[in-house]
């Protein structure tokens, strides 16, 4: 063992911070990179398949109906208002507000999942019809898994935040990062929405 | 230096391979314009790469030899590990420049090789369709006059000196068409149309082989390429256009009976007979070919017996089933097949 020379004392460093200081933030960002790569490649596959075709959808299939998808888009975009309020509340450590707003987010998640069910119904194709059908089903399913996982994550966190641990800084960081992830989920939805509903109508 | 020995052995194999094998299936075949282009370019690459390799190994050896020098070095023990020999920085820049130059030279060389191959491809005079199946090649010679179009299998005849465009299709999985003595490879992909242009320059017999893994019998999916003089090629074409001869001996006749009424006719076509299926290879001029079952066996009476009797032990997994012919039937079938010259 080499003899040591003492320098800084770190005892007064905090154990949590919001944003890039925390490991949670890096975990979420890494996860986003992985998911993003997955989505980008799925988009690439979509355009690769589209590139072969004279018409899109091929064989003059009917493009998906707009209603459910557009409704979903509006709701998920509006949910960002609640999401931003949560972020703000947690940064101000206003725990009762966070508890309340997260409840709203959980409810929004349920609504979104229900609308998503109708969306699958309005695609006008089954995934077994052809490659076009397969890829739009795949995109929608892929995004649904994100809604589902983030909704479940919000639910668990919401339950946790009801306890005294709501006042624990590291849990607040978790809430903050959960909001960040939700932004990512709706951001991803925009290209998916365009690819499923609008590109086949061009 | 023991390492000197191994390249030596390898060099011997190279020379042996290059000479004694008669370029049957070898990149040194040089039997077409494309293969010649390849070899010229390959030599340029080998020379430049060899120079780079010698430089690297030279530097390595210099480093090893230099370790026993007497003067202080830039090392921890001498307390000088934060210093750097002034030769190294310019050396690094020079090395980078050298690699860059070498790569540019090589890229330009391949650009020109590719251009000249592309130019040759623009002047094709004959078009052939090859459709790959698990595990055999279906070959069609197309002519504007439909009566002169012809279908054969596992054997390709090309006229020397004529650029030929071969259109490549697949009926099942991805295969790759590759006759090393003539040209590089090109994949046959279901749902896509590829092609390759070859201009053979040397009369001879060459072997090609599927180069993309295509299932159980990928290893036994070969084809024979005959590069003929133009006259021989036309003669061959005319001969192939004829229907199968009517059998003359009683034995062959009973073989004819069996082949056209039993299992064989459900998959194979023999022009001029009731056997007209297209599932398996065309057998009209089977006996004129040099191999059986996509290069699995050389053509001979004995091998025909073996193949017809039990294809599954020769090429396990092949789509031709073992029928279990009675000896009498077997004699007859082989006798008939032998007449399909």
């Amino acid at each position, binding site marked *: 063992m080499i003899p040591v020379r003492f320098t800084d004392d770190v005892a007064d460093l905090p154990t949590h911070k919001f944003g890039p200081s925390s490991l949670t933030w*890096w975990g979420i960002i890494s996860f986003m990179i992985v998911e993003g790569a997955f989505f980008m*490649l799925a988009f690439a596959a979509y355009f*690769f398949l589209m590139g072969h075709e004279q018409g899109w959808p091929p064989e003059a299939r009917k493009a998906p109906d707009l209603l459910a998808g557009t409704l979903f888009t509006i709701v998920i975009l509006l949910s960002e208002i609640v999401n931003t309020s949560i972020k703000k509340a947690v940064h101000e450590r206003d725990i009762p507000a966070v508890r309340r707003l997260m409840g709203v987010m959980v409810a929004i998640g349920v609504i979104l999942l229900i609308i998503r069910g109708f969306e699958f119904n309005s695609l006008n194709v089954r995934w077994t019809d052809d490659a076009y059908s397969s*890829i739009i089903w*795949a995109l929608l399913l892929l995004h649904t898994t994100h809604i589902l996982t983030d909704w479940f994550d919000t639910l668990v966190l919401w339950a946790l935040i009801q306890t005294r641990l709501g006042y624990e800084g590291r849990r607040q960081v978790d809430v903050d990062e959960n909001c960040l992830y939700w932004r990512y989920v709706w951001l991803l939805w925009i290209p998916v929405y365009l690819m499923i509903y609008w590109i086949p109508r061009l | 230096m023991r390492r000197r020995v191994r390249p030596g052995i390898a060099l011997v194999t190279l020379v042996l391979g290059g000479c004694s094998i008669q370029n049957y299936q070898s990149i040194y075949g040089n039997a077409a314009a494309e293969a010649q282009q390849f070899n010229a370019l390959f030599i340029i690459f080998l020379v430049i790469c060899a120079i780079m390799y010698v430089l690297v190994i030279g530097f390595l050896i210099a480093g090893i030899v230099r370790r026993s020098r007497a003067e202080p*070095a830039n090392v921890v023990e001498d307390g000088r590990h934060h210093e750097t020999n002034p030769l190294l920085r310019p050396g690094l820049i020079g090395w980078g420049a050298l690699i860059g130059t070498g790569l540019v030279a090589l*890229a330009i060389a391949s650009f020109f090789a590719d251009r000249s191959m592309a130019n040759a491809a623009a002047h094709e005079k004959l078009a052939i369709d090859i459709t790959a199946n698990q595990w055999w090649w279906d070959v069609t010679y197309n002519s504007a006059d439909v009566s002169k179009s012809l279908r054969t299998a596992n054997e390709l005849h090309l006229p020397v000196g004529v650029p030929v465009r071969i259109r490549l299709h697949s009926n099942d999985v991805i295969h790759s068409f590759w006759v*090393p003595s003539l040209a590089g490879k090109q994949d046959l992909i279901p749902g896509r149309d590829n092609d390759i242009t070859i201009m053979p320059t040397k009369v001879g017999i060459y072997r090609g082989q599927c180069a993309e893994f*295509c299932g159980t019998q990928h290893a036994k999916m070969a084809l024979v390429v005959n590069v003929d003089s133009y006259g021989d090629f036309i003669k061959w074409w005319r001969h192939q256009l004829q229907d199968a001869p009517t059998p003359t001996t009683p034995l062959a006749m009973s073989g004819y009976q069996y082949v056209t009424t039993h299992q064989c006719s459900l998959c194979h076509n023999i022009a001029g007979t009731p056997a007209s299926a297209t599932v398996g290879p065309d057998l009209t001029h089977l006996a004129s070919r040099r191999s059986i079952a996509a290069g699995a066996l050389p053509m001979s009476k004995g091998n025909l017996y073996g193949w017809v009797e039990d294809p599954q032990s020769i090429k396990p997994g092949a789509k031709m089933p073992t029928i279990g012919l009675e000896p009498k039937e077997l004699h007859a079938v082989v006798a008939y097949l032998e007449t399909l010259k």
Partner: protein
Amino acid sequence: MTDAVRRSNALKSRRAAEAERRDIEEDDKRLAAERKKIARDGPKLTGAKLEARLLRTWQRPPGIIGWLATVDHKEIGRRYIITALSFLALAGVLALLMRTQLARPDNNMIGASRYNELFTMHGSTMMFLFAVPVMEGVGVFIIPLMLGTRSTAFPRLNAFSYFMYLFGGLLLWGAFALNIGPDIGWFAYTPLSGPQFSPGKRADIWAQMITFTEVAAISAAIVIVATILKARAPGMTLARMPLFAWTMLVVGIMVMLAMPAVALASSMLISDRLVGTHFYNAYEHGDALLWQHLFWFFGHPEVYIIFLPATGFMSTMVETFSRRPIFAYPIVVLALISTGILAFGLWVHHMFATGLPRVGYSFYTAASMTVAIPTGLQIFCWLATMWDGRPRFQVPMLYVVAFIVTFVIGGLSGVIIASVPLDLQLHDTYFIVAHFHYVLIGGAVFPLLGVLTFWYPKMTGRMMDEALGKISFWMVFLGFQLAFFPMHFSGLLGMPRRVYTYPAGLGLELPNLLSSIGAFVVGAAVLLFVINGIKSLYIGALAPDDPWGGSTLEWATSSPPPPYNFAHVPVVESKTPMWDQQGEMPVITGLRVDEKETLLTTVVAAAPDLREPVPEPSLWPFIAAIAIGVVFITSIFSPWSLTIGLVPCAIALTAWFWPKEIKRNPEPVIT
């Protein structure tokens, strides 16, 4: 509801909130008082007393439960390495079987289908179950030690990643043992791997093995990247980071970007096979080439994911044994990063024969060749370091020389096949087999064997036998050349890859026989290496802390390191802290000793940033891995398992995340 009731309810809840806030404020005061009493390392608590207390805190529970629950990166790293080496041995045995079959022309020892299974298993095992995991395993083991931290980031994710990897490997080999192993090649081209031409479950097992190993590799990559970015010792700026950490950072990011491609491709394949989608069905607007694009978008970076950590090994060993810091450190770092970026632009060069537009040929050629520049510069830097230093040729350094001699041949043959006109001939021949074995064995396995010898004392506390090491080195080196050099000629003589036999008379007899003999020499050498490893574990000389005179922090702690890695977290003031410490190691003080805690620093400057509580051992990562594993395996048989199986997965993951007691501590604890 009347107004009055609503108002009284609002009042009630406001009162409750008020009460809670008061409660919390009181609690805060109590916690602040308790916080002062927490024991921390420092001048008052150091030496044997500190070590005893740290050991008590950091030690995992004994027994099988503790073994499954551990989150110690050293244990997990060792497991990763041992498991990966076992798979290397298994895949090596398959290679020997294949070489036996190919030793003579027209050989019938192994049938066609069995041979196809053998090369599929060999390739898949080597790529997915050996090469990537072993590199990540070494990274997981050594990176925290090199960086001077007590733990990796996300230690439970790390444990989870190992179990996923293990289950994936067991799935593949279990299936092989039960005769339902895949037989479609490690690249599984559609439509051969599709529902029609690969009946049964063989291809699905391959595809799900991919999913397992992808999850494992991505998890490990996240752990490694977050550790490197956030957990470095204070003062270890990015510009002072050891080169191996740089390589693992680049590799980690590459894994995150590349692995999703194959995960997507194999998910599409499974859905084609199971629920009848048409992604790869050319007759229903799909495209068989979509598979190849996705697969090689992963497959090409994969090669660098394997190779770059090996360059990190090289830099470490060259530096240590040349007794001189690596020459042109910034150039090496830039070379690493540019290799990482270029790797994503080159996937097309695996597809030259698929009928790409001809106008692109020259572009592909030039793009594929550019990757030779950064690699060439790195090689120069290593050679310059040796030349300028005073190299000592102990066993690890021999492997460095073997790397240069071998890898450069592979690199140069890589330049040859980067040229489209040349590749059209050489593609899918034994020339390619020779090329990538020169690159992967010469470029990755040789440095790996070297670095295992190098870090063996850090892993086990004992030295490997030098004489045996030298014998096995020469055997593996010469045997390798004998096995693979002739393959260049088999390829030039027209031998395609993945054939179970070849006819006599094509001139292939001699090169194949030589290759087979060489393969057995390599097999014997690896066996000797393993024997050396096992023997030294029991009767090897005891290793000092720093047996080689290394430059980086892993040599500052004992061999093997204690569960907490460093009694005091060191402070770094140069690139080679161990060479510049002048008999005294600067350290920080003030980390807890009663609970597991480590220090986080800022990303670039590595200034102390946060104190991070480190999770206690937990069984949940193991249980979650099992729950997810069951979903993956059963989804081979029915799509419903994905929905039903989600429930246990969600339970396991929630339990993993959920704190064991709902109680506030003076400072957070992760149990």
